């Protein structure tokens, strides 16, 4: 007998996997190189958004700091995959263990995931103890701390100049597979016992605590999980974009990812997917308009207006609180109920 949380996670993932695979297949068959880039970047962004979903969606606490873990994953992957010859040139002061390291895609992603989880575990220790509002604010501190470190730790990150020479290991296939894994993991966590209790604490932390849920512990678990997913996202992002500097892990990136989760809806995994899709489409269209009209900032403004519009009309996001497959399941089941 398959447990209900497992069957629901499988069903939910399958439900999202079908349209996503169709997009990937069409892109693979017909897209121009530029369009293909957009599609791969969409799947990479999906992993980043899902990371925020796994924490904020279940706990109800906003995080502005997750991009820091993306940076941790990206730098980890970069240090592991840049050929040692280039590394000895651009980062001569690196310890030889890392300087001589040269690993493939899978180990780089796995190690980055682990490092993301580890760093999140350290940071989460003080953070998850805080009251919800204060924690959301403290995550901004996390964003800044990591930015300052990336920007100044010349021996390891090459400071504000950034790193280059990362081999392009991320392909459309690997991006799709990893984003589907992320969807499955997020859905699994959402339906799990821990996820359920955490969602209860989202609705009312005091009541959840009174019923025996250790809210701080639940938040801590979700925080580490989201750190791991973010580390993975950062690793595949780095291995697709090949060169980056610390500014990539600051305010703009945070805004882009949060825009996706807000537009789609924080509370559900399908919301993250729909949000990523909507914002990517808006950005692509607006970027062309911006280029043609010659007005800088138009794209960001449009995305910000999209956020406001959604918050005014549907504060829970386009998808809302339930998963798409749950909603559809209910629709399909309803006539049978009615007949009885």
């Amino acid at each position: 007998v398959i447990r209900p949380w497992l069957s629901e996670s499988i069903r939910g993932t399958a439900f999202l996997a079908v349209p996503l695979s169709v997009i990937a297949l069409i892109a693979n068959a017909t897209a121009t190189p530029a369009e293909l880039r957009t599609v791969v970047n969409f799947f990479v962004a999906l992993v980043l958004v899902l990371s925020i979903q796994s924490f904020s969606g279940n706990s109800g606490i906003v995080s502005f700091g997750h991009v820091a873990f993306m940076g941790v994953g990206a730098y980890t992957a970069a240090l592991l995959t840049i050929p040692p010859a280039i590394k000895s040139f651009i980062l001569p002061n690196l310890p030889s263990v890392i300087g001589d390291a040269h690993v493939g895609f899978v180990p780089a992603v796995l190690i980055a995931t682990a490092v993301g989880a580890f760093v999140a575990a350290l940071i989460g220790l003080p953070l998850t103890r805080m009251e919800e509002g204060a924690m959301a604010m403290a995550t901004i501190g996390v964003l800044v701390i990591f930015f300052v470190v990336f920007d100044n730790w010349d021996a390891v990150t090459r400071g504000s100049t950034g790193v280059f020479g990362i081999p392009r290991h991320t392909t459309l296939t690997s991006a799709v597979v990893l984003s589907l894994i992320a969807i499955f993991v997020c859905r699994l966590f959402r339906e799990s016992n821990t996820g359920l209790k955490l969602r209860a604490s989202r609705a009312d932390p005091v009541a959840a605590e009174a019923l025996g849920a250790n809210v701080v512990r639940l938040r801590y678990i979700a925080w580490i999980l989201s750190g791991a997913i973010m580390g993975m996202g950062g690793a595949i992002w780095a291995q697709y974009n090949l060169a980056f500097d610390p500014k990539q892990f600051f305010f703009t990136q945070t805004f882009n990812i949060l825009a996706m989760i807000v537009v789609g809806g924080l509370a559900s995994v399908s919301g993250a997917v729909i949000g990523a899709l909507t914002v990517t489409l808006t950005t692509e269209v607006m970027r062309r308009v911006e280029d043609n009209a010659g007005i800088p900032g138009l794209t960001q403004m449009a995305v910000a207006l999209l956020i406001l519009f959604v918050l005014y009309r549907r504060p829970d996001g386009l998808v809302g609180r339930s998963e798409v497959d749950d909603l559809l399941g209910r629709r399909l089941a309803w006539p049978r109920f009615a007949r009885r």
Partner: protein
Amino acid sequence: MSSQEALQQLINALSLGSTYALLALGLAMVFSILGLVNFAHGELVTVAAYTIYIENEYGLAFPVQVISAVAAASVAGVLMERIAFRPLRGASFVTLLFSSFAISVIIQNLFLALVSPRQKGVPMPNVFNDAIHFGGTYSIGWLPVITTVTCLLSLVVLTLFLRRSVQGLGMLAASQDFAVTRLMGISANRVIMAAFAISGGLAGVAAIFILARRGTVEPTMGFNPVLKAVISSVIGGLGSLSGAVVGGFVLAFIEVTLDATLPIGAAPFRDAFALLIVVAILYFRPEGLLRRAVER
């Protein structure tokens, strides 16, 4: 450290702290009444700074620039509430937070599109660059002194207003319990409008000194101020007015002490160290320095 150096650093900390205090107080005032952490608070600083920049281009007198900058920030605060936040009144913490985040980005990009994406220099009066010289080689800049005096004066005026006038008492009461205050016959819209006007005005005053320090305007210049304001108010206890002021000074003292004591190699990491100390403070007092843990 000699006593003159100590005095210098003390003045630096006080001037920085009083700027942070003004920013944090404005943020806390809106938060305590509406439950909104206004991310676009930093953009009020930007509005004031660009007002000075534009009037400077037209050659207006400096006092006029200052007064109109404060007024512009104040009006911008009120407009922000009218246009963007009023439709969301009563929405959840997260919804409000995201909406202010979006508004902040919209305003930034408006300046970017309408003025310029690049930094623009703004010449300030010479007095800000002068220093008071003491017998020896030590001197104290006029800028930190003027900053401290002006900001403290604004705090005193605001405290008098809050404690002595009906409107002010209404706002203090609203910051503690908005629902009951409304039952006492205080108009919700007036309290909220006043909160945004004051919050904008305080940001405008702070903006003058922020501008005098950096000497340039750019669309994203509001990020650092709002960051400091948020951190200060979290140190003091989110939603506590006196806590925000205390938090501002605590943050400034941490930063100035780090500046004076960190070895040169570690100096670029100053903000990271400062925030680590803040996180450590919050680890031991998750509710902030001045806020008692209350039953919810």
